[in-house]
């Protein structure tokens, strides 16, 4: 059984989209079933979480929003999905099967107005820091995370710097601690 068939048989109806690029399989799963689907994948052999990170599709998102407005209400929406349409954020899990050495990319879309995902630290303890990083950089909150604090920026930092609308040079934030001497 090829990897593609295997993944299809594991996910069944929870598979939103499957794409293949040079032998790498990338699947999208619905947001409300993240834990359930990932548990199933883990039990089916994808037992190692090699990375977890976020993506901000701001440019695509704005473009798609504009195109939608132009089209008007009465025209039916095309069901075809090309490129990442809205919602804006994505969280990506890179899974590896240690027994068969197969890799799988699992994507979840996170809408801008509901930036909450269930934490997978219960499945893989390795998800602890990557989830903190995604929270720090994109502002996605992970429900059930044991210690959801900023990982890279300091605690008092207000923004989420890897969002595309955050200026590269920052907004002039500085870190001050109360043991500062003059």
């Amino acid at each position, binding site marked *: 059984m090829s990897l593609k068939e295997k993944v299809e048989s594991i996910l069944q109806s929870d598979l939103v989209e499957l794409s293949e690029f040079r032998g790498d399989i990338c699947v999208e799963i619905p947001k409300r079933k993240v834990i359930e689907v990932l548990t199933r994948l883990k039990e089916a052999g994808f037992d190692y979480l090699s990375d977890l990170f976020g993506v901000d599709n701001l440019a695509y998102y704005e473009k798609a929003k504009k195109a939608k407005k132009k089209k008007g209400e009465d025209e039916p929406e095309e069901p075809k999905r090309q490129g990442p349409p809205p919602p804006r954020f994505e969280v990506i899990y890179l899974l590896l099967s240690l027994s068969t050495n197969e890799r799988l990319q699992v994507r979840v879309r996170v809408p801008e107005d509901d930036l909450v995902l269930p934490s997978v630290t219960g499945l893989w303890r390795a998800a602890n820091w990557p989830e903190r990083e995604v929270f720090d950089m994109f502002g996605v909150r992970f429900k059930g995370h044991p210690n959801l604090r900023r990982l890279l920026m300091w605690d008092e930092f207000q923004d989420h*710097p890897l969002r595309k609308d955050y200026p590269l040079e920052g907004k002039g934030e500085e*870190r001050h601690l109360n043991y500062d001497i003059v």
Partner: protein
Amino acid sequence: MKFQAIQGEGWLLTKAEQLINWGRSRSPWPFPYGTACCGIELMCALASSYDMARFGAERVAFTPRQCDVLIEAGTITKKMVPVLKRIYAQMAEPKWVIAVGACACSGGVFRTYSTHQGIGSVIPVDIYVPGCPPRPEGILYALLKLIDKIEADHPLYKQRPKLVEALEATK
């Protein structure tokens, strides 16, 4: 040290300031503050082939209490700035700072939200060493320049008001 021998061996006449400067300039113990790739170059400058110890930087102090020269080699992120300030504050006087590399001097290639644009705005820097990274020769040259600077210093003259005050008090 400039000195004069009086009546043969066993006697030296020099200025107290020069004696102090001689001691200070011959033992600038470094505190290696390597935060990024420039730190590797600093290690090379300290190691046997370049051997910074030739110029008195003999003992690399890993505590700010026992060092004279803070060698800041590498990027300072904004998160790190309070730590740098604190370490500088913990150093005992007299103290000097060498900023090694474009990052420490000006932020270098990292003009971003996370990088502090030059440590000169948070602690006083004596010598800037440009380069990304500077070669160990550059770091050694900076140390020699610093030694020149120490020798041209007037440690007692600067304290004159304090000394005068202390003298008056004893009268």
